[in-house]
């Protein structure tokens, strides 16, 4: 009897121990779920390890992310319209993702800005597409997709020159007015040129029925906005672009949803996300302007603690190619530059 009691006790102890160990093992195997950080892509990524993701935004609009800048695809019966093309070295993966969205030909490609991570694969996708007509394309060119950008973007590319940026990346179809519009896939497509923003040649693209705006780098969920002073960028143009965005976007319910916004980098957003970003950029601009008004030098501004970007740096200051110090310096130079 005593022996039986011992056996049962031993069995119970072993089982309880094993059960606890099993539970610990199982719980340890459950991954911790955390909100993914909005981090910028490394300056020199290993492209072979990068993968793209495709998300449906709403209406006709899809996002292909992970190939550099965000790429947007409008797909419908008329064919495919792309906004930006990403890095050249990611074009195979983007093409594969694109074919899953639509097998229709690429008709138009709209460029939001100058940077390689937005325009690097222009040539690949232009050649892969065709305009919706018989015979040659624009200006007797081969029947390929139309590449569209602001006149200022073309001017900047030509000034940079073909040695540094291939002519095949230059947009032959340009507009010199503040806006260009056309109708495709059952909706108006409105291209809005925003002067003196990231560069002098930036544009946002508004898909009016789908209710989606594609911003280029004027709105960047992973970084302070880049200001390319050398190529016509300026802080006030960026803020103007963000304010125009707030005028276009309409939330569906209590400041959420409705018009969706695809930033140059990072997650799909809506008006409130743009609003917080606009507030931040404006507050930092105002701090620098206030210091300029008080005759502070750039060195004094940079030496101020806490820095003018301090409370935003953990969220937006992780871009090693565009640090908070570089951002503040660009604002200072932008605000103090002599206007012609």
């Amino acid at each position: 009897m005593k022996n039986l009691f011992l056996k049962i006790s031993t069995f119970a102890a072993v089982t309880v121990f094993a059960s606890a160990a099993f539970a610990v093992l199982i719980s340890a195997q459950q991954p911790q779920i955390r909100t993914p950080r909005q981090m910028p892509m490394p300056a020199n990524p290993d492209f072979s390890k990068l993968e793209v993701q495709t998300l449906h935004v709403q209406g006709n609009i899809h996002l292909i992310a992970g190939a550099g800048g965000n790429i947007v695809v409008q797909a419908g019966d008329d064919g495919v319209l792309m906004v930006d093309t990403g890095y050249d070295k990611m074009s195979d993966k983007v093409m594969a993702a694109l074919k899953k969205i639509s097998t229709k030909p690429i008709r138009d490609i709209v460029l939001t800005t100058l940077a390689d991570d937005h325009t690097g694969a222009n040539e690949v996708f232009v050649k892969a597409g065709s305009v919706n007509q018989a015979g040659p394309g624009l200006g007797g060119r081969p029947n390929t997709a139309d590449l569209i950008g602001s006149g200022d973007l073309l001017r900047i590319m030509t000034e940079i020159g073909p040695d540094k940026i291939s002519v095949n990346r230059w947009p032959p179809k340009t507009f010199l007015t503040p806006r260009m519009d056309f109708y495709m896939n059952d909706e108006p497509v409105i291209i809005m040129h925003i002067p003196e923003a990231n560069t002098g040649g930036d544009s946002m693209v508004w898909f009016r029925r789908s209710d989606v705006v594609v911003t280029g780098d004027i709105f960047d969920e992973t970084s302070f906005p880049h200001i390319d002073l050398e190529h016509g960028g300026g802080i006030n143009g960026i803020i103007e672009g963000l304010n125009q965005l707030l005028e276009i976007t309409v939330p569906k319910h209590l400041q959420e949803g409705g018009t969706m916004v695809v930033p140059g980098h990072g997650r799909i957003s809506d008006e409130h996300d743009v609003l917080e970003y606009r507030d931040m950029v404006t507050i930092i601009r105002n701090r620098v302007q206030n210091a300029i008004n008080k005759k502070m030098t750039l060195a004094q501004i940079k030496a101020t603690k806490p820095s003018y970007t301090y409370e935003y740096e953990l969220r937006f200051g992780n871009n090693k190619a565009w640090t908070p110090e570089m951002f503040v310096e660009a604002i200072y130079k932008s605000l103090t530059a002599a206007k012609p």
Partner: protein
Amino acid sequence: MQNVSRVAVMLFLFFAVMLIGSIPAFAQVDLTGVWNPNVQDEDNPERLQGPSLVEFVGLPINDQARVWGLSYRSSRLSLSEHQCQVHVVEYIHRGPMAMRMWEERDLITGQLIAIHENINTYEQFRTIWMDGRPHPSEYAPHTWMGFSTGVWEGNMLTVTTTHVKQGWHRRENIPASDEVTVIEHYVKHGNTLVHISVTEDPIFLAEPLIKSEDFTLSADPNNFNPFWPCEYTDEGEFARGTVPSYFAGENPYVAQYAAEHNLPQEVTLGGAETMYPEYRTKVKSLPVAVYPPAAAATPATPAPAAPRGGGAAPAPAGGGRGAATPAGGRGQ
């Protein structure tokens, strides 16, 4: 043969005990009903009159959040796009809210697919997915209520929420980033529901922010007003693109709350240290804040925002158009 059957019995018993041990994971409590808040204790000011400006005491905020809060002008909420801004999920359970909860089950199998919450503050609807689906991609949009999945831990519902919009940890002037993760626990005791939240914020918190609230099951399930309409109005108060904000060192209200409650300034600036009992000893050694400051002047250059423990240098009151009101901003 006897040994074989003994082994078989032992194995059967072993797995039976293992199974019994795991039963709590499948124990489900029905949270269905209308739950009304018990407004009391620590959550009273959050739910009713709202905190004062620069009342950061007891919040485990980091220096970045403090600098953000000290530059904040509550008139920012009068910008048209901010007027209908919603309490985020990590805050809304301290809104003056009631909530209706109900289950969504598979019609054939009866499996619990989701638990829904209709929170009447700001007409928010929330789905807690119970079917094991993954959280969305890093490129997916964020919402006020985020994306939630739940599991049963014994009779406690544990919910993990990601993809929340930027909001606040303390109403208006302590921000909560859009990179928070919220872990919630729902524990039902008869007609009482205890809600515990643990918020992690890599941008604005030095340590997790842990809060709890109590709710009571309403005897009348129809006693629930789901409406919270909000329509923004632009009264032309601000020029286009204006964003009200204080420059560093120019917030006139930094010392007000501290002085009115005979507290040292440092205490009201928050930080993880202010959460713990040992901090009471330090409080006794600090000077009480004075408000309004005797002779303050606008600094010649932007002064640093109040560092932790260094107090602030309040500028003159009367911050001009859009100045923060002493009573704080939105009351709900």
